[in-house]
């Protein structure tokens, strides 16, 4: 984040202004990515008028950065009408997240004309058999990369977003090379989000501990490995008084059905814009204010952890594990992969597992006693 944006974000936080909001326009999608956490059926998306009204309210509330995502945003027939409203009338800084397979030259030109800040496109591999094997749509890599070229030729900022899984682990360096070749940026994220219904089976698609360790020791990704993987200094008072993340402080998320959440990865319902004003949910929702009240010192387990001052702990992932003040196991794994030092959560689980072994021993004793009787 640039210094000025950081300054503006801090100002927005003090004034309780939602500076950055992601709105998912639809959960429908034309790809079926194996790791996706969404239910792609339409359960009653907001209409064009409802979305425009929401955007009007968001601009009034001070939202500056608007991320339009999905699902696949181009499946909405009114997508450009919404985008034009967001840009021409409301002057949002608009970022798009898309698989881009519906973007051809005319769409790219229109996106340029409307002054979109950036377009993030999911690319999982440079090899069609791997990328298309993840999206489950034959030919999707070619179409997405064609779109990257159309957008790039319009002078737009394009970012290739790669989610790291066991299936594409060996290709991340080539995706980065491909991005460089295309003259675009790239990101890499090892986070797999549980399904919206709480099903965590997709997490099995993620990379294992040794692969994560390998990624964190790749200087091309992390820069100075020694520095990146160093154990952080113990938490001081200012760390313990700090905020876990920006969710509910300067950012939030709105689903295609109008439900407002602290973040796209934090499925705690706080209100619905079909029933309440956006600003009232933001300011007065009990749930939003509960998330807002949490400081690092309030976290159970994590405050006693070696990694508390450097951990990437996601409160939303912690919430999905059952406690928004608790640890997020995926982030514990990251801290462990970086430093080799287990987190307080991992140590607690290990102790629990040892206790479980004792219970098994006890039952086997009971069994033996029964046999003797």
């Amino acid at each position, binding site marked *: 984040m640039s210094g000025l944006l950081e300054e503006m974000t801090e100002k927005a936080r003090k*004034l309780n202004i939602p500076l950055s909001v992601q709105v998912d326009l639809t959960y429908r999608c034309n790809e079926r990515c194996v790791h996706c956490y969404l239910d792609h059926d339409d359960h009653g998306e907001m209409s064009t008028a409802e979305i425009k009204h929401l955007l009007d309210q968001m601009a*009034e509330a001070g939202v500056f950065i608007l991320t339009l995502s999905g699902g696949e945003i181009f499946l909405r027939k009114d997508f450009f009408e919404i985008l034009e409203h967001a840009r021409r009338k409301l002057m949002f800084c608009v970022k798009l997240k898309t698989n881009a397979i519906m973007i051809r030259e005319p769409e790219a030109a229109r996106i340029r004309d409307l002054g979109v800040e950036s377009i993030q496109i999911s690319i999982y591999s440079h090899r069609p058999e791997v990328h298309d094997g993840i999206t489950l749509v034959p030919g999707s890599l070619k179409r997405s990369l064609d779109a990257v070229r159309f957008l790039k030729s319009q002078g737009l900022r394009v970012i290739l977003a790669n989610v790291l899984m066991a299936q594409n682990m060996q290709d991340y360096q080539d995706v980065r090379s491909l991005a460089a070749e295309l003259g675009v940026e790239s990101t890499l994220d090892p986070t797999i989000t549980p399904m919206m219904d709480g099903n965590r089976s997709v997490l099995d698609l993620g990379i294992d501990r040794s692969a994560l360790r390998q990624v964190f020791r790749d200087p091309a990704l992390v820069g100075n490995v020694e520095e990146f993987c160093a154990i952080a200094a113990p938490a001081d008072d200012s760390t313990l008084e700090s905020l876990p993340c920006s969710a509910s402080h300067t950012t939030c998320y709105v689903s295609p059905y109008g439900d407002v959440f602290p973040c796209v990865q934090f499925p705690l319902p706080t209100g619905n814009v079909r029933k309440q004003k956006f600003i009232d949910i933001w300011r007065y929702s009990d749930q939003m204010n509960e998330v807002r009240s949490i400081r690092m010192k309030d976290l159970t387990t994590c405050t006693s952890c070696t990694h508390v001052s450097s951990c990437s702990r996601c409160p939303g992932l912690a919430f999905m594990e059952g406690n928004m003040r608790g640890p997020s196991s995926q982030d514990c794994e990251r801290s462990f992969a970086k430093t080799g030092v287990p987190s307080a959560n991992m140590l607690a689980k290990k102790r629990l597992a040892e206790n479980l072994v004792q219970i098994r021993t006890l039952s086997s004793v009971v069994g033996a006693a029964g046999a003797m009787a």
Partner: protein
Amino acid sequence: MSKLYVARSLRVAARGLDGEMMIMSGRDSTLFTLNRTATILWQAADGITPLDEIVQQQICVKFEVEPTVALQDAESLARQLAGHEILQISDQPIQQPTLAAGESR
């Protein structure tokens, strides 16, 4: 001296925050903040009202400033903002689609 007309660029993003304007350049995503005086100029930059009228009607009435000095400063600021492509300037009125000025509460 010929009139100078100013219009907000179509390609920027803009939002008011605590009386100041955040502007993101459409050219390279550079973020700018405008102070209160520059924010008044930005909000009044409709492409139709000449800069000297904006200065007289909007700036001189809100700040105790000599009109000639205020106009010189405003011209310099307008040219600076035009250099970053966040404002258009012309000696003719600038026609463009109706734009909001990115105001918020």
